[in-house]
């Protein structure tokens, strides 16, 4: 293979969804015809979804994308194996503004090496956090976590150190670590990208967590919509087992969900892991005291756990140097929807949404004006275009009635009807409510009905008052965030886009 040209191609859902396998196949075919052989390295996705299908060639890793199968002959004509010029040539991605403008800490290794090759992981600094955690005691690791001010990335933003300490101090014969990989919020894919592209990083984070809190068993609860992540995680877990770092002392079991959004709520997820209906539990007790099978359980999101190796290896202080206000470190933002350059943008807290949507995103894909964005998923909020100067920050967004959530930003152009989006919020809640509490189960259905009347123009003012009242009931009376936060996008749409509720959309 001495003369083989290195060819880096992502093994990742988004790249596949737009045909990277077909492009790769064609490159290998044409290469054969022309006597050029390639050494194909299947990496994680670098998060430039707008440039997929994307390949990187040669030692200098010159990137070309987005490619179509029909571009391949032309690539060879342009001598792309030597970095030749072509309409799709992006140059070295490390020098590309879209990546250079980011601060990749959690995603620092993303796309650099083969995702399931443990040696590649080690050569890129993998297990640095684990090794330091072994040198330090559990209390020193907790000190680092304290210093980092890391907050849970799943949506609630709860300080990770407090949760870890609670589980560590809980007395029990058995404790569990559960990784919440039920990434169901629309507009989010950072968990998937990380699990497909750097699965060892998550495993390393779980190993550190288990050591600190004293757990001998971990679970990854993965949503069934992510079959490729399942495949890659299974391979990665097996590789770490072969290596001896996972075994009887601590092992991780991969569990697959079954299409329920509410199982992303931590107590519903625990029920599901126990083999039951995914209905939420009343809190207290907190899972940290009585979680899976009634035992103290540390439940963290994928990105939270994947942040741990960096924090432990480099120190919590180094992490906290990034960020804004009480939101420290970076957030892997997921830009999606109607956006020209969507993908994974990891930036320190404090960057404005405007910078994200325009500087990284390049505005809308349709070329029409941006009208609204949704941040924080179905339980997040809508913001109008003129509110985009808000910084990415838990408190700043909370002030606007929104939340960072899991960091998904969905862009809508001016064809979006916000009354229909409000209806959708209720409809989604009605479909996905676990049914345990009345405000959520019944309120969501009533919400759809009342929104239908508003959209039809029936007694609009009275019905809007009814919606506001209903939102209040759901907010105050629901057991969990599903019913409690569904009103959020509805009220935001009402506040900032009132015209759409008065038959004014498009007029």
């Amino acid at each position, binding site marked *: 293979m001495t003369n083989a040209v290195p060819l880096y191609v992502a093994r990742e*859902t*988004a790249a*596949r*969804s*737009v045909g990277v396998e077909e492009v790769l196949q064609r490159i290998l075919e044409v290469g054969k015809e022309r006597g050029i052989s390639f050494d194909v390295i299947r990496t994680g996705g670098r998060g430039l*979804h*707008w440039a*997929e299908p994307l390949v990187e060639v040669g030692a200098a890793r010159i990137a070309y994308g987005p490619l179509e199968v029909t571009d391949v002959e032309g690539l060879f004509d342009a001598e792309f194996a030597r970095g030749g010029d072509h309409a799709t040539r992006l140059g070295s991605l490390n020098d590309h503004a879209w990546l250079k403008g980011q601060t990749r800490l959690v995603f620092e290794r993303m796309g650099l090496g083969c995702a399931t090759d443990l040696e590649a992981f080690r050569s890129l600094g993998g297990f640095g956090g684990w090794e330091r955690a072994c040198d330090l005691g559990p209390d020193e690791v907790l000190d680092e976590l304290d210093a980092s001010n890391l907050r849970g990335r799943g949506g609630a933003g709860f300080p990770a150190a407090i949760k870890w300490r609670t589980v560590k101090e809980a007395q029990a014969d058995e404790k569990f670590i559960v990784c919440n990989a039920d*990434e*169901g919020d*629309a*507009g*989010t*894919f950072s*968990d*998937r990208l990380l699990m497909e592209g750097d699965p060892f990083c998550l495993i390393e984070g779980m190993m550190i967590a288990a050591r600190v809190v004293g757990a001998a068993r971990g679970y990854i609860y993965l949503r*069934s*919509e*992510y*079959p*490729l992540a399942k495949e890659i995680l299974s391979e990665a877990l097996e590789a770490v087992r072969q290596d001896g770092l996972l075994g009887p002392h601590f092992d991780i*079991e991969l*569990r*697959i*969900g*079954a*299409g*329920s*959004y509410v199982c992303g709520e931590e107590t519903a997820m625990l029920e*599901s*892991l*126990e*083999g*039951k*209906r*995914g*209905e939420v539990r009343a809190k207290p007790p907190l899972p940290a005291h009585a979680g899976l*099978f009634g035992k103290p359980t540390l439940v963290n999101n994928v990105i939270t756990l994947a942040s741990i190796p960096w924090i432990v290896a480099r120190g919590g202080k180094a992490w906290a140097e990034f960020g804004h206000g009480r939101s420290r470190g970076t957030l892997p933002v*997921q*830009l*999606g*929807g*109607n*956006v020209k350059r*969507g993908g994974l943008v990891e930036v320190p807290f404090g960057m404005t949404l405007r910078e994200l949507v325009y500087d990284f995103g390049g505005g809308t*894909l*349709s070329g029409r004006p941006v009208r609204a964005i*949704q941040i924080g998923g*179905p339980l997040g909020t809508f913001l109008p275009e003129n509110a985009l100067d808000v910084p990415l920050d838990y408190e700043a967004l909370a002030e606007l009635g929104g939340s960072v959530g899991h960091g*998904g930003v*969905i*862009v*809508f*152009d001016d064809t*979006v009807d916000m009354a229909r*989006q409000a209806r*959708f919020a209720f409809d*989604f809640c009605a479909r*996905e409510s*676990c049914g345990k509490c009345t405000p959520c189960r019944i309120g969501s259905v009533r919400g759809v009905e009342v929104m239908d009347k508003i959209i039809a123009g029936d007694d609009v003012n009275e019905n809007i008052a009814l919606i506001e009242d209903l939102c209040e009931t759901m907010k105050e009376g629901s057991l969990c965030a599903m019913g409690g936060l569904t009103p959020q996008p509805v009220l935001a749409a009402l506040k900032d886009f009132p015209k759409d509720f008065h038959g004014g959309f498009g007029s």
Partner: protein
Amino acid sequence: MTVWPKWDAAVARDLVVPHSNIPGGLLPALHGMQEHFGCVAQGAIDLAADVFNLSRAEVYGVVNFYDDFRKTPPEMPVLKICMAEACQAVGAEGLKRHAVDLAGGRMEIEDVFCLGNCACGPSVMAGSSVYGRVSPERLDTLVGLLEGGGE
């Protein structure tokens, strides 16, 4: 189009029993049966109740809760269309109408909420494959492919 095997209690038992010893093994057991038989029908519920020492009502309650579990195997190719917000922003509703017009009687067209492909929408899923930037034209090609038995 996959031809699903007929219910066979002995085969099913072999699929279920390995999960009966692991804590919370019911969901993996149900997944195992659905992967093999294409659904979790009454026989599967009865069997799981027996192996896990649960009432049939309890198992039915679990099966019924999760959207993934089907009562009958699919008779037509299944096309899942992402109807979540990011895909709505790039025309998922129009794509779904197109899909229903094109292949309504010949394919099972289901809504799905977020395939995690939000920067490459609209997205659809068939089998374990996700397809992105699905224009109506690309959907036509895909439907042809699925009906031809490919995936």
